[in-house]
């Protein structure tokens, strides 16, 4: 039996985390949750996930700061940004510079979530396996 894919969800909204993680678990993924950037960094240091879903808007350490810290710690795990508002392209430039594997609009259906997840996993490349 292959190792389940480890997904880390970072969001300050527990309800969103719970529903999505329930669904992801039902789909066979191994899900870890973090409600703050700091929690996420601690978790990643302990066990690196295969893909990270990162909320942009969070109190204290926001998505951009978290991503910067990750990249600074040489964590090159694919990161998918979670957005609520339709971000303008210019707002994502800084994230893109740090390397992102995709963007998921949180109101989109879970089917779309699945597609984005799969495409992010493909972007990992052989070196990070």
């Amino acid at each position, binding site marked *: 039996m292959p190792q389940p894919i480890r997904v880390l969800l970072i969001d300050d909204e527990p309800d*969103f985390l719970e529903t*999505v993680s329930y*669904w992801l678990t039902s789909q066979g993924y191994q899900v870890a949750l973090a409600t703050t950037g700091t929690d996420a960094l601690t978790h990643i240091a302990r066990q690196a996930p295969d893909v990270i879903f990162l909320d942009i808007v969070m109190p204290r350490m926001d998505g951009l700061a978290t991503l910067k810290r990750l990249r600074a710690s040489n964590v090159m795990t694919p990161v998918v940004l979670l957005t609520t508002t*339709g971000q303008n*392209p210019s707002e994502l430039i800084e994230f893109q510079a740090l390397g992102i594997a995709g963007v998921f609009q949180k109101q989109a259906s879970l089917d779309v979530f699945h597609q984005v997840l799969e495409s992010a996993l493909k972007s990992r490349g052989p070196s990070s396996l």
Partner: protein
Amino acid sequence: MCHVQCVTRKVKPVFAFRIPHSAFRTIAAFFSALLLIPLASWAASADDAARTTIIASTIGVAFLLGLILFRFSQRSSKGQYHVATPTDASGTPDGVAKDPAALPSILQEISRLSGSIQKQQQVARAVSELVSQSVEQRVTQARQEFTQRANQLIQEHRRAESALERKYQQTLTEKKQTTAVLESIAEGLVVVNPNGDVVMMNSAAERLLGVKQQARIGKPLLQDLKDEQLVSMVHSSEQGEREIVVSASQDSTKKVLRASNAVVTDEHGNTVGMVAVLSDVTKQRELDEMKSEFVSKVSHELRTPLIAMRHALSILIDQVAGPVSEEQQKFLEISQRNLDRLSQLINDLLDLSKLEAKKMELRNASMAIGAVISSVCESVSAWAASKRVTVSTQLAPGLPEVSADAARIAQVLTNLVGNAIKFTPENGQVTVEAKLTGDGRQLEVSVADTGVGIDKENLPKLFNKFQQVGERSASDISGTGLGLAISKEIVELHQGRIWAESDAQQGARFVFTLSLNPSSAG
């Protein structure tokens, strides 16, 4: 009738006479006696030559006598009176008075004075009095007339003068009022001539631009101002509004001014200057910023709970969390549908707020309109089929690609096609068409339906927010009333135009245009 000429002072008569008839008879007898002498000499002479001489002298004397008689009889019978006045030492008369009418009174006077020289002098004096009175009367009358006329002229002059004064005062008051109004209005007012020299500016303008009027009048407005936007404001001949940012002279803060320009023309249509009305919209812009931030914050806060609900519901409906009964399924679907509606409303509101704040960025790329139309039609096909409405497309061959944000254009098309399906009865037809405009410079996309159409008076209102002009079925709860307003903003953001056409009962046709990408048009 006046017989007095050139009389300017009291006249002293010096010559006046009348020969009475008795004296005249004596003179006539004397001359008749003289005639007898040559006649007697003629009778005594025998010499012919002497006789001839005597006859000739007799005839001459007789002639003279006749002449005198004739002259005196003429003067006395006419009864004329003659007065002459001397002016200088030589005694040459400078005035003559002849007045037949005065004669009876004179004669009466003369007879009363019984001919003595002293009395004659009195007569003369009286005549002179009479004449001078008459003259004086006339002179006085003339003087009075003259004075009256002069007074009249003076009065007219004074009236004109006071009218002028009133007019001047009125103009002065009006000018003061205008100045007071201009000075009291909060908006800055700058008037420049065609050369860009300041003709007038009020104190609000001084304050807003941080300059003093006295230092500016007659000088180019921007002699010392470095703001290029201001330069363009003054030099731009176009009318209308624009916003300019100026630095306050005292501190480093920037002011946002809205300048409304109007070109001033004379009655011949020549440009004589420009009036700019400046208002400080710094606060307004700050509020806009705050509003924009607020909207962005609220949008996040509004969407977050909806997202959690949405995913939770979909887990239930998809039976990921276990089986649900048919009834449970029905109510879960009602919840989901209304949640979608609420999400759509929030999304539309936020989109619109972003568009109106000019915060929407386009991801422009070369786009094939055919592909966008196909994908939109495909996404609504299930819904159209459920309503038994046919959606067909008509694409002109060889359409060039346009530079546009495909996702936003799809949003517009989805809205138009969705509306068309919504307002088309069963077995109706929705046609999406794309072609080039007549001049070949724009792409024209239209969505036509076979619904009830839209009243002419409602057409302009269609693109207003929350405007619903058509009847829709009670079961149809989709639509936020913002779709067309958003579509309009998106199309205009692409420098295109959107409008609606409709004939009553002939269905409606919504059209929008997109400028062709010059690079892909070739």
